[in-house]
């Protein structure tokens, strides 16, 4: 819970600002699936689930998609027509690390593994990261494959 602390006028009326205790921090995000509850409200994502959704959202966003943030995103689609050679794994890892370190401060990457299944024109990425505030470890699997 947010705690309101009162400060004097001499201290610049800091009480007008809400100070949030790090221990109280709770990540609460909207569920991008927009699934409705029976009451009509949409679901929320909290804590690790919120961070996991954000990381997935980040990785699946390409450069220039987000307004006024041209470098935001994992830009994995930029690798679409790259050759499936041994360097592609390193490139994907670099892109993922860069994106998460820059845009998702709530997550600390523990491990990333990339596995190609060239015969199916598909790449699977497994990201293991830790939610910094709760030290909870989360694993995110995502697969990039051709649609047709």
């Amino acid at each position, binding site marked *: *819970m*947010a705690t309101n602390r009162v400060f004097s006028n001499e201290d610049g009326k800091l009480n*007008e600002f*809400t100070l949030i205790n790090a221990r109280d*921090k*709770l*990540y*609460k*995000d*909207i*569920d*991008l699936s927009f699934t409705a509850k029976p009451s009509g409200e949409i679901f*929320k*994502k909290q804590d690790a689930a*919120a961070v996991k*959704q*954000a*990381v997935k*959202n*980040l990785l699946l*966003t390409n450069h220039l998609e*987000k*307004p*006024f*943030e041209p470098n*935001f995103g994992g830009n994995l689609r930029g690798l679409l027509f790259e050759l499936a050679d041994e360097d592609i794994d390193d490139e994907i890892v670099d892109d993922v690390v860069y994106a998460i370190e820059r*845009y*998702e*401060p*709530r997550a600390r990457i523990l491990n990333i593994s990339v596995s190609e299944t060239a015969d199916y024109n598909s790449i699977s990425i497994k990201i293991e990261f830790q939610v910094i505030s709760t030290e909870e470890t989360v694993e995110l699997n995502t697969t990039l494959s051709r649609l047709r």
Partner: protein
Amino acid sequence: MATTIKSTALDFSSIKNNLKNHLANQTEFSDYNFEASGLSNILDVLAYNTHINGLIANFALNESYLNTAQLRSSAVSLAEGIGYTPNTDTSAQALVRISFTTSTTPRDSIISLPAFTEFTAVVDEITYTFQTTQSFFATDNGSGYYEFLTTTGSNLIPLREGSRKTKTFLAGEYEENPVYVIPDTKLDAATATVNIFPSATSTDATAYQNINNISTVSASTTAYVLKESPNGNFELSFGDGVTFGNAPETGSRIEITYLSTNGADANSASTFTPSSSLSGGGVTTPLTVITSSNASGGQAKQTIESIRKNAPFQYVSQNRMVTAEDYTALIKKNYSTFIQDISTWGGEDNAEPEFGAVYVSILFNDNVDQSTKDSIKRGIVDLGNQLAIISFKVRFVDPVQTFIELDTTFQFNPDLTDKNLNAITNQVTTVAANYFGAFGLFNKSFRRSNLLTLVDESSTAVLSSRADVRIQRRFTPTAPSLIAVINQLTLNSLEAAQINNVVGLVSKRKFDSAASFLVNGEYTTSNFTDVKNKLAATASNLTQVIEFPTSIASPDDINFIIRSTEFTLNGRLSFLRNKLSSNAIQVIAANGDVVIDNVGSYNAGTGAVTIDFFNPSSIAGGRTDIKLSVVPSNPSAVSPIRNDILLFDPDRSSTTALIVTVDN
């Protein structure tokens, strides 16, 4: 705490921050600060939408006002709303004499030069086409020599640059009151002629006038409207046939002919070659073309800034020439390509009032020659005849240059700068010269305090400054009318020294001696009495009055108020100076001797200096005029009036540094 979403921000990040501030007041969601969060993505969409809507509203409002419109199409449209038609591309115009000689017989005694006869000229290795825009006629002088003349009898034929284009439309073919589109962005509206033929095949046309050139409109007025469309092309339209001018009847043929021009690119074209021989009237002959004035006046379409500046003035004038400002607005509108600046005033404001006259002083662009200037002045008089509600006489006066001389002195502390004395002195001199950089136009006042502020700010080592100000006019101590009379009497047979002798005698009012010299020397065929009378008649013009734009300081018992540059008179280097404590002006030799005790006087109150004629044999510096400097009664500010233009004379100015060691 009340939640407020600021709605004034246009910037994307500001809008998004506003939304985040709004979200900070609730506890339902907390991840709005993380760019990858779902909430942040939704904020992006909201902020982007608000941003775009805000920008569109901002653009739309900006484009709705003449002062803020950024698009040319908006400025043109808004200007039209207040009755102002922006200038189109303007073709360069040259004046030439066109003639030919033929011995062919039989031949017509009057031969015409058809409209749109083509000539070519080269500028920067690019060939441009020049054309006549109307017919001209030449009459045989009896020996086969023909020279083409304008309807006013002038032999200066205007040629305009551009390629001739004709567009034909059939009226009523599509709908009522149509707008006829002319897909040409380089149309010169001044060259457009619009003819309406009653049928598709008729050759009997009615010429329509541009609505800008007429002052009243009725149902039968044969006028057309030619205006720029939003895409830069042009649109031709006519009246409605009810109240706003005649409408071409259904089935009639509309023909517009104009020049599509290259604007300023063809300026300075000087040699014009006929594209073909003249054929007609029984002769086929090459034309002889002599350039009287090079091509000038070509200009691109009026810029947005120019429209912004001129349209409101034109609106105030209502396309009628009544007040002096109306003359300024309409002359600028019609001749802006030739004019650098213009000043107009009513004759009642003159030093000697003349009621019922408008005075116009025009500072022409440098590349406009005398023939073109005369042509423009005639055009202005015609414009006045068309648009003046009351009949005014239009008087043209040339701009008069008044120069400012400055003796600037400043205190300089060398400890406060790395620069030496010369460098700082040069810096101060440059500051003064730069201050006058914007001068040279009408209504630019000199204010000493402004200049000294700049001098003081030019360096931390300049502690203080002062400036002695003089104003200077230049005059030529000759009597052109007298010399013209002498040349006329003697058929230009006298040498300069002999003319000087006669001029000297006349200036001393010795008309008998002057007439005797000419008659007895058999330099003239006129008789003595005639010569004497003619010389005496010019004597009244021998006194020059130099009117300064401001009052002059009263005579002083220590300082001289008036002083001129040097000249040689009677073999002695001399200059003009006023007597101490007196308004009288003397000619003083370099050694201080008085050469002529009273050669004129000055009126401190009116600023008029009267100089009687004197005849120097030469003027110092190889000049043809004498610089006459006076101390103004108020040296703090000099404001030019009417046709005065202030300039700086660096040759008669000085900068002096006084070295001091104090630093406060």
